[in-house]
């Protein structure tokens, strides 16, 4: 690292999966008009970035790749404590796939002087491919650690507890390093009213692919989403009621007996 720790954190303004509805007849989700919000895991990444700065000093740069509404995700990152905000956007942002996003993030870090620690969510709430962090590390040929459940940062590098399916792996890396975090790593703070107010006044630096020397053809999608559908699982939706808890319990027991699912 140089004099100041350079911490970057990426935030996605993705679909709000709890508010996304499928068309009743076709089962298809209209992705273009669905409500959006900051992806959950990315808030953990911003929180972790701010905690590292609080301990070691440095500057936290929040970056989002997306449409104009992604300013909202950046505002939230600033409210949590990020120092500066960058929006990478362009006419065709809606078709940018994980490859395009990783390329733009890589190009932005190159253009703006590099980083020591790059934190982002292990996956986005809507797409959950888990690819952008590892892709970014691969693209930059730098160290990458995914699925971080605990991070200890020092002046020269990080120690990360990596959450695997059945094990915890402790991994060490020198800067620069890209770390993708899971939700176990922290509980993001709820910004105060004043922090929110200040964040809404913060200037966002807006950059397009030409500013980052990325030609349009390098961003042409290689993975195209053709349709998104919610499979219907029929449920009986039978209400069990009664005048006392014992009566309700007996009715449920009988129903489950009828289903043949009791031991």
């Amino acid at each position, binding site marked *: 690292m140089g004099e100041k720790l350079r911490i970057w954190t990426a935030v996605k303004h993705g679909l709000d*999966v709890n508010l996304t509805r*499928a068309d009743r007849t076709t089962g298809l*989700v209209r992705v273009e008009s669905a409500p959006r919000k900051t992806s959950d895991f990315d808030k953990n990444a911003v929180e972790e970035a701010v905690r590292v700065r609080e301990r070691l000093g440095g500057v936290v740069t929040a970056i989002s790749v997306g449409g104009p509404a992604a300013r909202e995700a950046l505002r939230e990152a600033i409210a949590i404590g990020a120092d500066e905000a960058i929006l990478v956007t362009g006419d065709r942002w809606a078709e940018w*796939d994980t*490859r395009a996003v990783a390329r733009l993030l890589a190009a932005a870090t190159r253009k703006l002087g590099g980083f020591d620690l790059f934190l982002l969510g292990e996956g986005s709430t809507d797409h*959950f*491919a*888990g*690819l952008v*962090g*590892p*892709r*970014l590390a*691969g*693209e930059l*040929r730098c*160290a*990458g650690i*995914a699925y971080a459940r605990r991070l200890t940062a020092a002046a020269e590098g990080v*120690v990360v507890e990596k959450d*695997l399916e*059945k*094990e*915890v*792996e402790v*991994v*060490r*890396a020198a800067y620069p*390093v890209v770390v993708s975090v899971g*939700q*176990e790593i922290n*509980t993001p703070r709820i910004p105060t009213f004043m922090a929110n107010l200040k964040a809404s006044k913060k200037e966002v630096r807006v950059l397009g692919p030409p500013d980052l020397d990325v030609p349009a053809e390098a961003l042409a999608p*290689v*993975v*195209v*989403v*053709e*349709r*998104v*559908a*919610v*499979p219907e*699982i029929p*449920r*009986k939706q*039978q*209400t*069990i*009621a009664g005048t*006392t*808890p014992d009566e*309700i*319990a*007996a009715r*449920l*027991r009988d129903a489950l007996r009828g*289903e043949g*699912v*009791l*031991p």
Partner: protein
Amino acid sequence: MSDERLLCVSEEPEVAVALVRLARSLTGPGTGRVVAVVLPGSAPDAAERLAAAGADEVRPVDGPALTDPHVVADLLAEIVAAVSPSVLLVGSTKRGREAAGHLAGVLDLPATTGVTGLRLDADGIRVDREALSGNAVAVERIVRRPAIVAMMPGFSAPPAAPSPSPGRVRQPPRATAPLTERTELRPKAGGQLEIEKADRIVTIGRGLRKKEDLPIVEALARALGAEVGCTRPLAAEAGWLTDDHWIGLTGHRVHPALYVAVGVSGAVQHLVGMRSSRVVVAINKDPNAPIFAQADYRITGDLYQIVPALTKALGG
């Protein structure tokens, strides 16, 4: 049936075999070529098992087990250059997704993860994958080959079709310097419960007011012969139960005959973990809780009254 080369690799032996069976069914018997990488540290019979599943060629890699994704990506990049596959199939495990992403970044390849179905069409590779936190299925078309496709462990794999004369090519290890260093590997705390295999599950959510109240739910689980599951906040935030109880997008996916959701609101990220259950019971005091839309039997009421009554009714 197509004359394509498919390359398969996974650190999970069962997944590796399933990938080879899938690859074989995509090329058809006697056409195309299925190549399977045997990672260092695999079981002695790994190469034989992959050949029996349908690999035309196995490539055992010498050397110590690989953990650094940069080193794994570098090795796979060399194998991709040697085999020139149209698709590299990996497992959508945490290590699999991480390696897939690194390699995709290094070689600038298309990649997708969480895939449950794969078709090699003339106008591209089509995959079915989980979307919207697992509650929707997206169809994606990959427009360029080679591509990296990470298959969900447990995807339904076609039967094995052994190749008549499988070949064996030794893959020398690479001298790439790792960028990360493993200092420790330990099993997860708790971690011994295999809730995916449970036939009955009682899951507790934030409706439970304090950790000391857990026995109320555990008594019901005993009466039902069920395992205890929980939602994310109880495992990841409160730590009342260990991760092996956690059901949801980043926890475990379960498919029991009976699923009893107690004080569970039903966030989308939880629903993905339980939607394959056969019979679902929901007990919640909020009549508008989203879990009720996914339930066969709905009880609106206080879990502190209903659960003990139910335990008693079941003879617990």
